[in-house]
């Protein structure tokens, strides 16, 4: 008796999103199968992507092995971003840490000029995460969107409290938005419904918040899995967006990452591998060695 392996042919599609412009574009999403299920009938047109992160100010409490690959450029975000590309990053993720009122409270105009400088200096698309403070983030991203008009950056995070203030300028100036909710799939869908009332769904990337291995990673994992399944299998339009795993900060602030170099790289690496398996379309890393290992493991170029 011949064994015929069951094959799934789902018909839900994760919307394909293009970041960047001209010669430097990157596509995320577009899949009609679950992550890495190459044995199913659907297609997976775009491989997962890896970004390296850059801070807009020299970090104070990083372990020395994380500073070490970038120590000569750590005070210069432009050079730092260029080095990230040299290390094999598919995109750069600029974290506007200094713009937070609790840090340097950098004015929106200064932050925006830096973003522009970094965007223009690299041959890959740019992702920007604004400060944690929602009110400040809204004014910063509005300015960034305006100053970098037409560059099709990926800007965020837009949250429940500020998505209107962010979505409007992001759309007006031709960028994409990151919709972020904290480890709650129902609130994630709620936010997407609200944003997509006046913002095209094919310019939205979902950030369900990435927790590190040992510190809640399984919550991020289950939610990413469910987002993918709900979108691909059950065709829920409000979950059919690519997912970003902004995991570097969470991974490297763990005790384990700070006490040993190899352990730290594995901590970031295992978090990244797990979340990519769960369905993240793009992972933001910090250490170039992690990036090399993850690319090798998944056979990414």
């Amino acid at each position, binding site marked *: 008796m011949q064994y015929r392996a069951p094959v799934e042919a789902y018909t839900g599609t994760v919307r394909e999103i293009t970041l960047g412009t001209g010669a430097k574009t990157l596509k995320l999403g577009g899949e009609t199968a679950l992550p890495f299920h190459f044995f199913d009938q659907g297609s997976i047109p775009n491989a997962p992507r890896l970004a390296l992160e850059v801070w807009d100010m020299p970090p104070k409490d990083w372990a020395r092995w994380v500073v070490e690959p970038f120590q000569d450029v750590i005070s210069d975000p432009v050079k730092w971003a260029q080095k990230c590309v040299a290390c094999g990053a598919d995109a750069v993720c600029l974290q506007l840490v200094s713009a937070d009122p609790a840090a340097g409270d950098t004015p929106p105009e200064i932050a925006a000029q830096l973003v522009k400088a970094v965007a223009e200096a690299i041959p890959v698309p740019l992702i920007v995460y604004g400060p944690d403070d929602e009110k400040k983030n809204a004014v910063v991203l509005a300015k960034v969107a305006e100053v970098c008009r037409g560059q099709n950056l990926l800007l965020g995070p837009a949250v429940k409290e500020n998505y209107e203030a962010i979505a409007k300028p992001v759309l007006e100036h031709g960028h994409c938005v990151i919709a972020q909710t904290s480890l709650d799939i129902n*609130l994630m869908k709620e936010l997407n*419904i609200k944003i997509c009332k006046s913002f095209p769904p094919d310019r939205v990337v979902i950030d369900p918040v990435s927790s590190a291995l040992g510190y809640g990673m399984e919550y991020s994992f289950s939610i990413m899995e469910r987002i993918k399944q709900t979108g691909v299998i059950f065709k829920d339009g409000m979950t059919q967006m690519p997912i970003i795993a902004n995991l570097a900060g969470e991974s490297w602030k763990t005790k384990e990452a700070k006490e040993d170099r190899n352990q730290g790289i594995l901590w970031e690496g295992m978090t990244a591998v797990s979340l990519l398996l769960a369905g993240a379309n793009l992972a933001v890393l910090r250490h170039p060695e992690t990036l090399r290992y993850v690319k090798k493991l998944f056979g990414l170029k």
Partner: protein
Amino acid sequence: MIIVGENIHIISKAISRAIDSRDVKAIQALAVAQSDAGVHYIDLNLGPARKDPIAMTEWLVKTVQTAVDLPLSIDTLSPVAMDVGLKMCKRRPLLNSISGKADSKEHMLPLAKKYSTEVVVSVLTDKGCPMDVASRSESIMETVAYANRLGIPNEDIWVDPILLPVSADQSQAKEVLEFIRILPDILPGVKSTLGLSNLSNGAPAALRGLLNRTYMMMLGRCGQYSVIADALDRQLMALNRGEMPEYVKLVYQVMDGESIDVASLPADARDYVKTAKVLTGEKLYSHSWLED
């Protein structure tokens, strides 16, 4: 379906104040309103009843029984208050509730035997709340067997599967429906109940009734005996009297996976269809499920 009116409960600030100040008029008005709405039982939710349990319970039961002639459901965690309440009931009361927790079996369950009441038995145990059909079945069979050994027959038992809010765990709505469906097979003769309003806890206030009513229709189809519900939700009571068969038909169609031309429906019917799709698990829940 048998309706147990939930409206006299200590969690409401207004009720709590009325009880504290011994406001006979306020409590009796609420009892009469529920009776007029057509409930079959009135639930008196006293909560933990730490403050003055005996006097409070005596006053409340007396006040309600003076105004209406309906069987009462006494709902409290305090065995002292429960004892007093059950003793005072003119008609055969419902003990709400006992669980598989050791404490409950030891201190509450004997009161059901003592006063020969009907008794709500929930699926909770000291291990917590079972989250699927199989574990609910396991725990309820154990607890009911224990009650049987005390001399309480299945016919006096109302099983409560413990319904969780759909906004907290959407999968539970489906699990409870399936559990109710198989209940007659695993425990022949038992009745069933649950706190219907718990389903919509956490959902937008204006839409809670819609969730409750839709789920009640689905429960009815699965053979649910009773619900503890908002007696003042007129549409809910009307639905229970069979006055809106068109909504019931649509909800059953969603349960059966039939395709429905939603666009051709009037707005209120459309809302019931969308809500049913969330409760079957077909659509992922969000607070804006009607705009999905």
